[in-house]
């Protein structure tokens, strides 16, 4: 029944896209002549479709047209449109492009080389006016390498050294320049709370405020109070004709977050740090996405009680003394089982290609497979308000599609084709070029 409904949706979508029913009923095989007409329609046939939203379709047909998914269903229910480029995916797995909910892609090239880093402006701990899009390096070698393993969308976040380190951008991992790749600027605010953000003394130096967790919490509250005050004064000034108002970019940047219009991603690792930071979030009615929650396996109910989504970007972090060896591996599954919406992320600039394997570990340690797949596709898209555009094989969504020779979460699987916005991606990277050059 589900398939029928989708078939109907598909037909409806095709009509919306300007295609006619007779076209849909036309013969299956595309001809060269048709392709040259520039219809830009691709039909992926015969594959096992992991739809994310409506189960697995064996021997499915997926139609991509002008950058969108325009039809999906079984071979019986979907007619391949006339003129479509047919891609045979028999024996292959087809799934939505992966969405990495926390990365530093394009902010750093070589980890040890500080001159290649634009990770974080840590001259002050309150830096909401730092915009990732100002530093995002579209030509980084790390992006092609991530996308040939099926990663097609990523949140780029600044480094975590600051209490408020800036605002994230959403990127797609293809495009001819920065403007094409950045899908959404300032999509979320990056807040971090824990040991790393304290301005403790370096070497023989003196500490700066805030050098403790108490200091961090007070500093955050004061900043948000000042931002509210700024917003009120700005509104008041706006009502007076011709009144001059001095714009302060730092507080300006915080306004959309005070109203809960956009999400605040709060990175926090220790169970004892959760309540203090969530108290601030509740005081200011922030729209929270929790990040990391690495060592919180004894407060899972507490996390669930906040009814906020969680990005788990810590699966490769070690448990602490006293924790079981699989305490961190098991966290995504345990959270998902409590009904928490979980995204799994890499929090990386050079290991993003391993995103599907991070989800695979979560499966090994108890996360249901469907949930793990969701955690790297639909869930992150939804958390950032992009669920209507990305994260599943559904009609109307952006045509980010991956074809692989096996289970996407298994390290032994090879990705064969990647479509981003309906465009077939060149699978060569700097690394394949090196491989080929030295394989001769």
């Amino acid at each position, binding site marked *: 029944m589900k398939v029928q409904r989708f078939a109907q949706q598909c037909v409806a979508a095709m009509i919306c896209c300007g295609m006619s029913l007779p076209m849909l009923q036309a013969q299956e095989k595309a001809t060269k002549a048709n392709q040259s007409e520039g219809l830009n329609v691709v039909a992926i046939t015969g594959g096992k479709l992991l739809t994310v939203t409506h189960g697995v379709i064996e021997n499915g047909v997926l139609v991509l047209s002008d950058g969108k998914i325009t039809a999906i269903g079984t071979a019986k229910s979907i007619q391949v449109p006339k003129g479509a480029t047919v891609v045979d995916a028999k024996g292959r797995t087809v799934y939505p492009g992966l969405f990495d909910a926390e990365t530093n892609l394009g902010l750093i*090239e*070589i*980890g*040890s*080389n500080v001159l290649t880093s634009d990770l974080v402006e840590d001259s002050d701990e309150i830096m909401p006016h730092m915009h990732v899009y100002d530093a995002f390096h579209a030509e980084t*070698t*790390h992006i092609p390498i991530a996308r040939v393993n099926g990663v097609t969308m990523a949140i780029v976040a600044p480094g975590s050294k600051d209490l408020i380190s800036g605002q994230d951008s959403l990127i797609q991992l293809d495009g001819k320049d920065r403007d094409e790749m950045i899908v959404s600027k300032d999509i979320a605010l990056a807040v971090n709370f*824990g*040991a*790393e953000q304290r301005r*403790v003394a370096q070497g023989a130096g003196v500490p700066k405020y805030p050098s403790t967790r108490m200091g961090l919490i007070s500093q955050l509250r004061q900043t948000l109070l000042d931002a509210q005050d700024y917003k009120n004064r700005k509104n008041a000034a706006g009502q007076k004709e011709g009144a001059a108002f001095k714009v302060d970019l730092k507080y300006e940047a915080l306004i959309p977050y005070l109203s809960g219009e956009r999400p605040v991603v709060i990175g926090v690792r220790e169970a004892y740090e959760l309540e203090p930071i969530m108290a601030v979030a509740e005081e200011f009615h922030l729209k929270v996405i929790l990040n990391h929650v690495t060592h919180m396996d004894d407060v899972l109910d507490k996390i669930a009680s906040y009814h906020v989504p969680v990005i788990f970007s810590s699966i*490769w*972090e*070690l*448990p*602490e*003394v*006293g924790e*079981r*060896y*699989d305490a961190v591996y098991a966290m995504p599954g345990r959270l998902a089982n409590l009904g928490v919406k979980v995204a799994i992320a890499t929090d990386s*600039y*050079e290991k993003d*290609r*391993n995103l599907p*394997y991070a989800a*695979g*570990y979560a*499966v*090994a*340690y108890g996360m249901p497979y469907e949930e793990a797949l969701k955690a790297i596709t639909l869930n992150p898209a939804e958390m950032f308000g992009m669920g209507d555009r990305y994260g599943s094989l559904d009609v109307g969504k952006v045509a980010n599609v991956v074809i692989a020779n096996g289970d996407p*979460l*298994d*390290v*032994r*699987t*090879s990705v064969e084709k990647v479509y981003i916005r309906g465009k077939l991606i060149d699978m060569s990277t700097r*690394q*394949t070029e*090196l*491989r080929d050059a*030295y*394989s001769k």
Partner: protein
Amino acid sequence: MQDKERRCEIALRLLLALSALVCTGGIRAEAQTTNHPVDSVIRNATVMTVTHGTIEHATVWIHDGKIAGVGTKIQAPPSAVVIDGTGKYLTPGIIDPHSHAALGNDINERTSPITPHMIMSNAFDNRDKTLYFALAGGVTTAMLLHGSTNLIGGQSVVIKNKFGDDRDAMFFLNAPLSIKFAIGENPKRQYGNRNELPATRMGNFELLRQTFEDGRFYMKEWDSYNRKVASGDKTAVPPRKDLKLDVIADILRGKFYVQIHCYRADEFLTEEAIAKEFGFKIRAFHHAVEMYKVAGKIAEDGTAIATWADWWGFKDESADAIPWNAVLSMRKGVRVALKSDSTDDMRHLNVEAGKMVHYGGATEEEALRMITLNPAWIIGIDDRVGSIDVGKDADLVLWNMDPLATFARTEKVFIDGDIYFDRSADGLGAVKFHGTMHSGGFGGGEDDSDDEGDN
């Protein structure tokens, strides 16, 4: 365990040993000094031997800590403890040839570029939690090396990961001596930042050559003295005993396996030239991310590599790292091991090996060999561990499925025939560990850790 309990247990085990002897009618009696049962069998598992294929529905018989039989028609003594392997996979224990786990923050004696007299076992902390995590990931043996700030760092310690046993019991008995060298960015950064030699690769290699010249001279002085003594010269005066040069001389005498941290193709070639100039062999290049560029040449020298599956881009000299390096190098005749150099990767080397199926099309056996028999060769213990063969130590891992899959989990880990990790056990699963673990140093995932280690 209380002493009384222990005595009871020993008595019980002696009884068991005797009964086993009677039942099998003539297995050579051996003194039972360890606390493992005399015989145990893992039945009906898919056994990946590494040396002679994968055997379905096979039995592995463990006798007195050694592998006593492998196959489908093994008759173990009826008294043997039976472990059901139905639906599970059995592999040799994983061997990590490059780790800094359990060395606290004592990884680098970064006060001089030449410190061969550092002996890593002096820093070994057998309660480090990272050993537990590695055990739970199937690591039964590891070589723990000095860090990479120094051109010649120190002498490795090889351990059996018998987590919970006494510190002394964890050293791998009679493992060959290995010494760590390092070249490239790390020594450059460490000493260059202090405006000291070596700040460049020129400085790296020239200082290395001078060190060997010094070692050569020292060796000749001692050889001359020893000749005099041997010929009955009572007036011979011994040269000054120098702990540092002693080791350099022993490297020149071929008494150490030389393990070299380096990344770039030009570095491999220079290192081999220096080794030939001074007459020693290089056992393995570690990291070796550019081996695919010169693998044909290095294969002729017989030097192995211990590399990562897919690490890259974290420093300038890893910019040309490609995930096909391991398989391409292997195909050109280089012996390849995967290693962790990371307390994280050390927990899932099986998955890292699985990546080799994807990157370059290694067979599962080839991939598994990279984390078992080949690292054993690098350490020099491949005659004792690294495969499931009769006579080898019973260091084994039982997995819930094919261990090269992302979804694989360690079920049980055996070392010398004893179970050290059991996922189904209560608590931590480290069945022999009691007491308090330590938080570890390098990459220990701790707050405020200022030691980033030195990849």
